[in-house]
């Protein structure tokens, strides 16, 4: 469904993403993890069209979308949330979600109905008429999710929707994300909360210093020497194994 082929992004002297390749089949939740500054958000921005890659191509359902504007990609069915939440602060929650719903529903009544439906699914139905600027952090994260969902995406890119939430809020939102997957939306998520990654993702990609260094089921990837070293530094994997042997 989505194929990222050898995509690179250079910011001046910095290679933010270095020929990253990734391919998604329809269905399921796929994780994208990696240490801070690995280039995860840049890769997301290239998939959603906000940043043009320096090299490589991006295909969605067979079509080359490398040069397409973000709104065209949204029409094709790529939805995204922002790591730093971007609510339309002056509008109510319902109006915020309706902007997304208007993509596929031209009539106000249809768009509003869709917005209410989505709000219920993400647990925002009690806040519909509140100004978006007055929501809590958890509320804003749900709003990001709701707006993206209202565009009825086939592929949903979630950029750290769990960051900044407390454990009970995370526990509340995980079933929501599962519910979205169960309705047939493919999810690609950047996440630092490893417990959630292990819990939700069928497969993860690991990005470190702009390169894709590993790919596979979360349990396998987390035991991968390169992945451990990317997070903890060179030699860490061997040290951990030695310690494990002593304690074992």
């Amino acid at each position, binding site marked *: 469904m989505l194929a990222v082929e050898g995509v690179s992004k250079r910011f001046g002297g910095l290679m933010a993403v270095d020929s990253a390749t990734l391919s998604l089949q329809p269905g399921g939740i796929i994780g994208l993890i990696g240490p801070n500054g690995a280039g995860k958000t840049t890769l997301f921005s290239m998939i959603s069209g906000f940043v043009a890659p320096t090299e490589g191509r991006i295909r969605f359902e067979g079509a080359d979308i490398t040069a397409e504007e973000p709104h065209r990609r949204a029409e094709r069915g790529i939805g995204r949330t922002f790591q730093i939440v971007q609510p339309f602060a002056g509008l109510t929650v319902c109006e915020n979600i309706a902007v997304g719903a*208007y993509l596929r529903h031209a009539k106000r009544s249809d768009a509003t109905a869709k917005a209410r439906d989505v709000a219920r699914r993400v647990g925002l139905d009690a806040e519909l008429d509140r100004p978006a600027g007055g929501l809590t952090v958890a509320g804003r994260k749900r709003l990001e999710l709701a707006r993206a969902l209202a565009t009825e995406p086939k592929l949903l890119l979630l950029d750290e929707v769990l960051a900044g939430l407390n454990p009970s809020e995370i526990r509340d939102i995980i079933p929501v994300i599962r519910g979205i997957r169960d309705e047939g939306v493919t999810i690609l998520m950047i996440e630092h909360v490893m417990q959630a990654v292990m819990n939700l993702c069928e497969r993860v990609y690991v990005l470190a210093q702009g390169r894709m260094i590993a790919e596979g089921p979360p349990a396998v990837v987390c035991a991968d020497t390169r992945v451990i070293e990317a997070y903890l530094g060179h030699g860490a994997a061997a040290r951990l194994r030695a310690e494990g042997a002593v304690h074992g």
Partner: protein
Amino acid sequence: MTARDLIPIAVLTILAALLPLAVTSSPVLNFLVFMLIVALGAQGWNILGGFGGQFSFGHAAFFGTGAYVTAILQLRYGVNAWAGLVLATAAGAAVGWVIGFLSFRSGLRGSYFALVTLAFAEVLRILANAASFTGGAAGLLIKLDVRAANLQFADRAVFYWLVLALVAAVLLLTRWIQRSRFGAQLVAVRENEDAAKALGVNSLTVKLRAIALSGGVTALSGCLYAQYFLYIDANIAYGSWISVELLLAPIIGGVGTVFGPVVGALTLHGLGEVAKQFAGRIPGIDLIVFGGVLVLAVAFARGGILGLLERLRDRGRGVMARGSKEVSHAGR
């Protein structure tokens, strides 16, 4: 749109239409017509600036285009004044689209966009002042020939009703925008352009539509100005005074609201007239009042007069709600 959307517009229009039956003095009617023309132009500004968040400092570019197009069509080509009205509006929309295309395509936002619009208006002013086609510095005088076919009426009240009808039509247009997909997308672009794009909003198209509509409405007001006062020159039609008037009225009245521009124009010109009555010997006293009102609005009434009223109403409701809660607690 529902009946609730339409009734306030209808009621206010009917009330305003009854005014000339009570007031027949021509200075007062002159004042009312001028104020409504400013209100109409300000409604145009409000579509782009209020709903779209793209603050233009150069709406004179559209006002002047409307005035000049109708004047030149009548004087040089003998076009009927009513047709001139339509063509002037179309010309304003076209100028809006071109200015929008040039500035939005290059990603100008905020103060940069404001400065570019100011520059366009100034360029047009200087060109109109220099070219003989536009009458140069001497300006253009539309021939006095009082006939309804020429859009000139013996009774000032008729012109008042005409302008009022157009103001009401734009109130309806604005209400429709507010309730439509286009309006939702326009407001989304104002609030956060990147987030809007991610939700599938083609922000360039949306902004271009807004500036074309805005330019058309403001050109219509310029055309009416030329038709009522029958004389324009570059400093009237493309002067920065009108750019300032057109953005001041919505800011005072309530930016991004349906009635804001009309309320703002009424307040500003009402206060200006009152000040002139009391201190007519001081030249420019009305401008001092404008400045004072602007300072007050920015300092104490973000969201303008309508925003202030809404906040007061909400506070009133809040007090009542709290009151009734206490009562129900006491009841238990």
